[in-house]
């Protein structure tokens, strides 16, 4: 996060950061890593990208290489085998980078907490920016998680993103309203 707000940086640096944030927030590229998940969250992430939910309308694209990615989407608890890989994938991503932990397991280990091969949640290994709870989280919740991240990067686009969310069906309209505490719960650290 330190690349976004640095203390009294030179002017060119601020400009560059703003440009980088602008391009990133308009089209974040995701890379997905399953560090020991049951597949439940993985298929919901795929469902999020396919026609019914179509996350691509927010400019989001899932692609293969960590070196091209802005956002690492993690699913599952971290197993002892995959901890190393997870750290390596995170290290390979260029700055600035963000991590979204999808599912109860990636938050705390979930149902598998206490099993001998489980280290715990994703934040045992790498820093996490947004947590999406659920077992498995509905595609709407995953969209919401990504939107929370995007709004954090570009506060002045918040309204536009909210409108897109309502259109995507991820949030019910204002009248029914999404509870504030709920939004906080889903929100960033």
């Amino acid at each position: 996060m330190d690349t976004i707000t640095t203390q009294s940086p030179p002017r060119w640096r601020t400009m560059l950061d703003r440009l980088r944030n602008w391009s990133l927030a308009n089209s974040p590229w995701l890379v997905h890593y399953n560090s020991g998940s049951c597949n439940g969250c993985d298929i919901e992430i795929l469902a999020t990208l396919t026609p019914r939910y179509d996350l691509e309308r927010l400019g989001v694209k899932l692609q293969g290489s960590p070196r091209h990615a802005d956002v690492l989407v993690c699913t599952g608890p971290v197993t002892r085998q995959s901890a190393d890989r997870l750290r390596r994938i995170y290290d390979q991503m260029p700055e600035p980078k963000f991590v979204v932990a999808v599912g109860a397991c990636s938050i705390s280990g979930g149902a598998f907490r206490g099993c001998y091969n489980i280290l715990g949640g994703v934040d045992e290994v790498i820093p996490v920016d947004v947590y999406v709870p659920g077992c498995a989280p509905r595609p709407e919740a995953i969209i919401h998680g990504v939107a929370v991240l995007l709004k954090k990067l570009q506060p002045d686009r918040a309204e536009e993103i909210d409108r897109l969310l309502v259109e995507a069906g991820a949030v019910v309209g204002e009248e029914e309203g999404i509870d504030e505490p709920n939004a906080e719960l889903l929100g960033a650290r």
Partner: protein
Amino acid sequence: MNAPATERFVVPIGPQHPALKEPGHFEFTVEGETVVDATVRLGYAHRGIEKGAEGRNWTQTLYLIERICGICSHIHSTAYAVGVEQLAEVEVPARAQAIREIICELERVHSHLLWLGVAAHDAGFDTLFMYTWRDRETVMDILETMSGNRVHYSANVLGGVKFDLTDESAVAILKGVEFLEERTHHYRKVVSEDAFFLQRTRGVGTMTHAEALALGVVGPTARASGVARDVRLDAPYVAYADFPARIQLLTAGDLEARFLARLDELLDSFRLIRVLVAGLPAGELTAKRMPRKLKPGEVISRVEAPRGELFYYIRSTGGEQPDRVKVRTPTLCNMGSVITQTIGHNLADVPMILVGIDPCFSCNDRAVTVRRAGDDNGRAWAWADLRRYGIDYYRRIRN
């Protein structure tokens, strides 16, 4: 740069790779374009569920077992529940068994559609991927109407099921099945007629009947090679004795046959779901009483998961917790066939051959030790032993 054709390269794939949705590591030795050797390294998703089950009581284990796999979660919990009920000598009402079977078949529909999409994606046919996933949402909606959740439906409780089939969900099921049946006929046409797609599937990864028997493959992978093996018919569980499935056999044994076998199974599932909804027996949803402690004993439970035979061994020593739960999943049986099938094929065909068995690494990644009969009675493995063993093992297969 043209390397001489005799030069060998090792191409590592995974654990994070665009062609893999799950972590697994493969090393393919190639000579030019041709794969001459393949090794697989599994275990990235090994979580220690079997051991974890021993620290939970019978009911808690049900929910842990369900999370072995997010795609076929119901079949895992069914296998476990059927086994535990047999241990407890509890009679499950007929209506509950039939509802279990409906969910089993709906799960097969969702799993096969999911697979069709992912397989098409690996073939570079993203249009088909998007269409199947759009249609798959229909069955996800049905499951959600019935259970309230899209992925882990938690339909089973020990001794029965948690929810009834309401008139509302029966209507939703019939409507959804009608739509999906029409779409499946269309997909069957695409898969068997599209010239470009056939170039990726016809004659690729062929496994003869004899090879399939020798490798011990299960499920649609075996049935596409003409091996008549389906637990739903061989050893009917839940309500499959009253509402039997029909076996879908093909003989070609190539990737195309594996596509068609699964699509035929989809069509049969639709038929079966209609029969079940129409003839659902009346009665209770759960058994009168399910004991908290189970008598000492052991039981074997076999079910037909979307990917093939799923095998459970459950042992009780009379306590509130299982003494041992052993799971053998279909992917583990089929994985060996990938390694043998890929040899001699182009590297570009490898993802298709892998996806042809419908691999599920989260099911697959469990510890197995094979002992000869008459060996010592085994020993406890400490963490350091396992680590040592792993290092030695991979050093050995590398050389």
